[in-house]
């Protein structure tokens, strides 16, 4: 099963879980699977229009995804990583 890696800032809904095993054949399907398990996760990643939040970056097996990130195909052993911009200042 693909694994979704959750950034520390977004682990409130996942109750601290950092890596979630899911079923899904695209990045979006994987993220939606996390939402099904842990309601409240998805709005942190995707905005009301269905686009990736601008302060989030998505990676597939370590490669940053650009346009069309949500539609990228995911295989059984793939890793979807969510990164969120967090800094002090």
């Amino acid at each position: 099963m693909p694994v979704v890696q959750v950034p520390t800032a977004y682990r409130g809904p996942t109750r601290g879980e950092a890596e979630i095993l899911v079923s899904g054949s695209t990045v979006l399907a994987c993220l939606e699977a996390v939402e099904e398990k842990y309601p409240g996760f998805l709005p942190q990643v995707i905005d009301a229009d269905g686009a990736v939040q601008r302060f989030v970056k998505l990676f597939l097996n370590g490669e940053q995804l650009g346009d069309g990130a949500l539609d990228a195909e995911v295989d059984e052993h793939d890793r979807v990583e969510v990164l969120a911009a967090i800094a002090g200042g």
Partner: protein
Amino acid sequence: MAGPEGDRLIRVDMTNQTVSEEPYPDEWKLLGGRALSAKILLAECDPTCDPLGPDNVLVMAPGVVSGTMAPTSGRISIGGKSPLTGGIKEANAGGNPGQDLMKLGIRVVVVTGKPSDPEKRYGLELTTDGMKVVAADDYKGMWNYACCEKLAENYSKTASFITIGPAGELQLTGASVACTDQQKERRPARHAARGGLGAVMGSKGLKYVAVDPGRARVRRPADMKGFSAKCKTYTKDYLAGPQMFKTGTSSVVPVANMLHTFPYKNRTEGQSPDADTLDGKNINASFEERGGEMHNCMTGCIVQCSNIVHDAEGNYKTSALEFETLTLLGANCAVASWEDVADLDRLCDEVGLDTIETGAAIAILMDAGEMEWGDAEAMKKLVREIAEGTELGVAVGNGAVSVGVRTGHKRVPVVRGQAVPAWDPRPLKATGISYAIGPMGADHTAGLIVNPGMPADQWAQASQEVQLVNAVCDSSGFCQFLQPTLDDIREYYGLLYGEEVSRQQIADQGWECLQDEWEFNRRAGFTEADDDIPACLREEGVGPDHSIVFDVPLDVIQQVKTRFELRDELFAAKASG
């Protein structure tokens, strides 16, 4: 000694306005910045002294790798006994003075004493030609930008400056120490802001420090080839990565708001209705029409998280407008416009004030009913009043507790006298533990953990570990936003001095720094009873139904003072502030 030779420790006696130098102790070669400041303060400063008296010691210490070719490595630590908290304080800043001091081989400047005439002002010159204290009465009362313009006229193009504004001269406990950035204008836009160290500098009559490395080159590591290769690989990897800070800390506003850590109206709410108008996206969007840009505050920075903000006419207004400032002077005071916050940021930089402390103080004034929520114009007038030293201005310039005392208002969110930063301890419990027990008081740069879902049994260890990593980072000269790991830092140190620096050594350095700082505070009179978050944040919640309070038991907070076993993960953990 391997690595940089001829390093010096500079002593400045402000009672007699004399400067002397000593060889830098070899046993301190791996100590810089915060850890060095703590070591000197514990040895040479009476923790019970009057922080604004002659016995306080003001330390200016660049990091270990500052002045080398290492990327984003020019942070400088300013240290002393804090007049705000009464405990030890280290605040660090970017800009170029850290790099320039190290190019001169100056590892630390230790300022003691106090002039007999409090009306006199002095400058300290540190150049390739020598070192001396000079009269600076004609700089008296100058705001930071005008002061640095005048300094730029009077010193070489290669000089950088450390200055205080009127708040420091008035010895207000919210006063900052400004450092000039690397722009050709040399603007005093980078501040060692927290803890009132500007007041300590002011108490010593020191208006400015001019550091001129002339044509001095970057410091030469013992293993030049290895050090160069490390710098190249590190930079390449960083630039190939996500560069999450490329749009500046102001871009964090929507995330913080989502996580209930964007305080509104003196922290009575964790979210602001004005998050969209305060969002840093508006600042970045203004660049195209008005000019302004993201830039590096110090020479050799690859992070470039600092913004330069222009006004509607395209003229420079301020730099850098950060997340913390947008929160404390913006949302927390119910100010809705980022442009108003930009004005306030410039004013605070001019007067020489910590924007966090000032914003928190004004929010308490508003919460007490003495100023209208969101009245940005009244706030600007008030910050100008601070420079004039009016009764109200002095109260606000002395910070949150001072305003609490003046108004009798009970909701005063501080830890050990220092205002709580934007990152809120209620949703972020482990960060709250860092505030409660960290030697610096409420300081996000000492131990930020943005993980609202962290299980309770991990809080204490996570807080200790991030405090340790950040202590090492703040001693190295690297900026926390470069996010170096302990393994990175020890590798740089090893190549700099041509000797192996072990994991145990680097971790011990961080722990020893914390121990030194805790010991200073213990001798200053702090006890376990001081290691807590204020009642208002334990009793008043944020989030749904205001249900999220700071509810960490006191015994869990105290666990941080007992060292946890070293874990491999610690050495891959990134500095986080």
